[in-house]
């Protein structure tokens, strides 16, 4: 599930990004370096925001970035960055973004389980601020593990 996908190598904290495109680059880079997506997937994630609008900012301070399986996904994957400074995506309700997840999916059944757990984590009171404050990938993973253990 989420902890099977979200490994230390898929998390980066206190990342500097000047605009939303850099947020997509940085979040996507973690999946690219892990050889889980092709480079074109990052471009597709940006295009999706250009085409569909900034509704990827699904909740206060949180972006959920993705494109389609056929845009260059090698395996189900998930990455997370926390931002040194919040970044505007142009979403009037939920800006600015403090943390961003990027995912790729080729196996829908597994993907549904991952998103289900991610929803549980994000519905937690102050989850975004708690994740944004963490200083390392380990701390973030421990936090997520604790929330899921309470379910």
């Amino acid at each position, binding site marked *: 599930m989420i902890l099977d996908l979200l490994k230390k190598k898929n998390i980066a904290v206190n990342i500097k990004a000047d605009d939303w495109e850099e947020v997509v680059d940085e979040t996507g880079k973690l999946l690219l370096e892990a050889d889980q997506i092709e480079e074109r997937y990052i471009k597709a994630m940006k295009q999706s925001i250009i085409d569909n609008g900034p*509704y990827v900012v699904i909740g206060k301070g949180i972006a959920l970035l993705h494109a389609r399986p056929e845009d260059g996904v090698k395996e189900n994957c998930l990455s997370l960055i926390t931002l040194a400074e919040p970044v505007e995506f142009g979403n009037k309700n939920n800006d600015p973004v403090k943390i961003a997840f990027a995912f790729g999916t080729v196996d829908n059944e597994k993907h549904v389980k991952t998103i289900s757990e991610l929803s549980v984590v994000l519905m937690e009171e102050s989850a975004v601020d708690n994740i944004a404050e963490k200083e390392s990938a380990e701390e973030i993973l421990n936090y997520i593990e604790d929330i899921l253990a309470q379910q």
Partner: protein
Amino acid sequence: MRVLAVCGMGLGSSLVLKMNIEKIMEQEGIEGSVEVKDLSSIMGEQADYIFASEEIGEKIEHPAEVISVKNMTDKKEIKEKVLAAYKKL
């Protein structure tokens, strides 16, 4: 209550929305189903309500009432909107 949760691709925000609506329906004992759809595949789908982000909601043309959600991770907002929709049925 039959609900469609809709976003651009049916993979991301609509899935988060589906999970959260289902949770509220379960807690409140509301019978029904929540199905994920992308924008291009909702025509011809039967539903009582369509839930989506504001941006996507504006693009939807469907006989069912569209309910837009500002913050898909806000339990309170989703609960209020699900309960209000259920009462209107």
